[in-house]
């Protein structure tokens, strides 16, 4: 009886603490959604009781270019991740499996793309982009986003390749698989959790990138990170409209995370159990 009571008490305390944490963690999102329904006039003078309106949604989604910025962001972030996966996974395999001169230096160079703050390298990049005619183009942004996405994918996936026993590859080759089938049918399924996790993280970093799209685009292409700030107007900060923009901007990340949650949890915990 005592033990049962202890268990019930323990569970109650645990659940209460978890519920409190959930409130703590979700409150900013709740607050953000709440203010999407407030007018500017009621923004500073009301808390929970106000006259709800859809005006902010109308303004952001129907009367500004935010929707196009959203589409632009999806295009550049998704394609940047696709390019990074297509080029980064074979690169990660090579770095994990082959021995060649300067291998570690090369790996370090790839990682070093993440070292310098974006603002520090933006001027040469801006000038190169102007010369090459890729300023304010999808291609240009996808290319520069490789600085964000590629190192992450290569370094995470490299670790996963190193964890796969080489005998598995040799066994497949003995069974008559050509090298590309070994890679696609044996190795890729094995590293899938890591690849999915790395790709999602890369997507999130690309999605939230600010300095590159701010300075290397803007006339024809705009991303949500830049477009969201437009609601800081000269007259006032339109917090309601900014909240709508932020709410819409998190949707792809949340949906993606939920869709691949299974792989994500495995992927993130995979490295923790290796001996």
């Amino acid at each position, binding site marked *: 009886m005592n033990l049962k009571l202890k268990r019930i008490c323990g569970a109650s305390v645990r659940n209460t603490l978890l519920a409190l944490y959930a409130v703590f963690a979700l409150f900013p999102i709740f607050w953000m959604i709440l203010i999407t329904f407030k007018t*500017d*006039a*009621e923004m*500073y*003078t009301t808390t929970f009781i106000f006259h709800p309106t859809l005006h902010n949604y109308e303004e952001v989604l129907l009367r500004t270019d935010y929707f196009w910025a959203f589409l632009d962001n999806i295009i550049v972030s998704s394609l940047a991740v696709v390019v990074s996966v297509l080029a980064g996974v074979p690169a990660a395999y090579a770095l994990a499996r082959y021995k060649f001169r300067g291998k*570690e*230096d090369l790996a*370090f*160079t790839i990682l*070093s793309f993440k070292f*310098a703050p974006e*603002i520090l*390298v*933006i*001027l*040469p990049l*801006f*000038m*190169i982009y*102007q*010369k090459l005619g890729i*300023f304010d183009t999808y291609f240009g942004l996808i290319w520069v986003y490789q600085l964000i996405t590629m190192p992450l994918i290569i370094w995470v996936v490299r670790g996963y390749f190193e964890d796969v026993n080489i005998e598995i590859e040799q066994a497949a080759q003995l069974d008559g698989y050509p090298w590309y089938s070994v890679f696609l049918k044996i190795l890729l399924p094995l590293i899938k959790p890591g690849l999915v996790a790395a790709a999602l993280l890369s997507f999130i970093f690309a999605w939230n990138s600010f300095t590159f799209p*701010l*300075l290397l685009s*803007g*006339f*024809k292409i*705009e991303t949500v990170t*830049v477009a969201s*700030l*437009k609601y*800081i*107007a*000269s*007259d*006032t*900060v339109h917090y309601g409209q900014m909240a709508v923009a932020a709410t819409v901007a998190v949707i792809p990340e949340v949906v993606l995370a939920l869709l691949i949650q299974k792989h994500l949890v495995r992927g993130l915990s995979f490295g923790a159990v290796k001996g």
Partner: protein
Amino acid sequence: MRLTFKLAVSVKIVLVMCFSLFIVSCGKKEQDVSGKQAATDEAVIQAQQAAGVNGFSWDMAKGAKIKVLLNQHMYAEAIIKKIADFTQKTGIEVDYAITPEENYFDKVTTSLNSRSGDPDIFMTGAYQIWEYGAANFIQDLTPFIEDSNLTGPDYDIADFYEGVLGACRWDLIPGHKTGAGPYWGLPLGFEIYSLAYNKKVFADRGLAVPKTMEELIEICEKLKEFDGRGTYPIAFRGSRNWATIHPGYMSTFANYGAQDFVIENCKLVSKVNSPESVKMTEDWVKLIKVGGSPSWSSYTWYQAGADLGAGKAAMLFDADINGIHQNWKGASKETGNIAWAVMPLPAGQQTLNSNLWTWALAMNKSSKNKLAAWLFMQYFTGKEYALWASLEMKSVDPARASVWENSEFKKMMSQQSGYLETFKATINGTRILFTPQPHFFETTTEWAATLQKIVAGQYDSVQQGMDELKEKMDEAVEYLKTE
């Protein structure tokens, strides 16, 4: 092994730096070349020749394409609405990008620094001209303005308020005042500094609008928590940023007879520790302590204006247009209750000085479409457009006197209690009160930081704080030559 690794990293970093320097130096070469051509800018001559055949006409750059960089602002919103009309009238295609102010000048500086000619036109403030002009980033507009083949007969440059147009003029010599020398920009609109107050709060308590700094401090004592907890007497900016200094503080600073810099022995010397400056700062600090928001040190334009609109502050000592954004119908809780009066002066002071901020259009020195760019500037700073923007887009304060004389505009603004009268009383004393020099942002941000430290009690006296500030300001401008 570790040594080799470090060596490899070092070599790579050096290579990257060399590459960046090479790229930047390519731009520098172009700068030197364009610098030599300053007097006879080929693009200007070409524009003059192109126009010279038939004289001025709006379609003389037909088929050209220009890029315009705009700051997120009501002035920009008005421009965007009229771009189609401009294209129809001139045959010039316009691409524009609009960027929030927080990051706008990062983008402008990067773009100008690249000397790629992109964008052709951008929005700028007067203080930025001191930086961009010194770096040879912007086009001198004088040859365009003075050429009747390039400028329409109805442009009427004399219609701009002298102080506002003068804010965009400077001879590029540090220490020389604005108002003379080449034109580096043309104003879209501007703001003056005044006292906005909640007339209902004042009427309910039988208070008169303060005319002197002493009266202002006295009234602040009476308005402490005037409408319960969280309410306070007067809002103004206080963040650690140059923008804290340039509105009410700088205007009052000049009204106390103080100066930021003077020229001594061909060098700029800061005078922020003069007796006038110290007295003014002592009074300002008293005002902050008696009447300011408890969060004053984080306050920017937005918080200060929003507090007046929300009824948290009874007064606002800031730009006249900051208050007006809270007073348009439905804009805030206190809509209709806000009124304006001229800023309080120190006792005995009769002359009213107000600093100003203007958003102007400027041309990229490296633009490859200068004639088309000039037509764009002419259209969007012209009389017709200025009136339309003011009436239809509430784009205030217009920089052209003819708009202020327009009966429809007067009628619109007369609904804003005391606005027109305050403007009329202030405009003649309105000009840039800072001494132009390319380190403006560095020195004024330091000024704001010092003000914060003085309020926080980190100095034994205001004099000590201002003495230290003077040293820092002198150090920043030490190498500048004033002749």
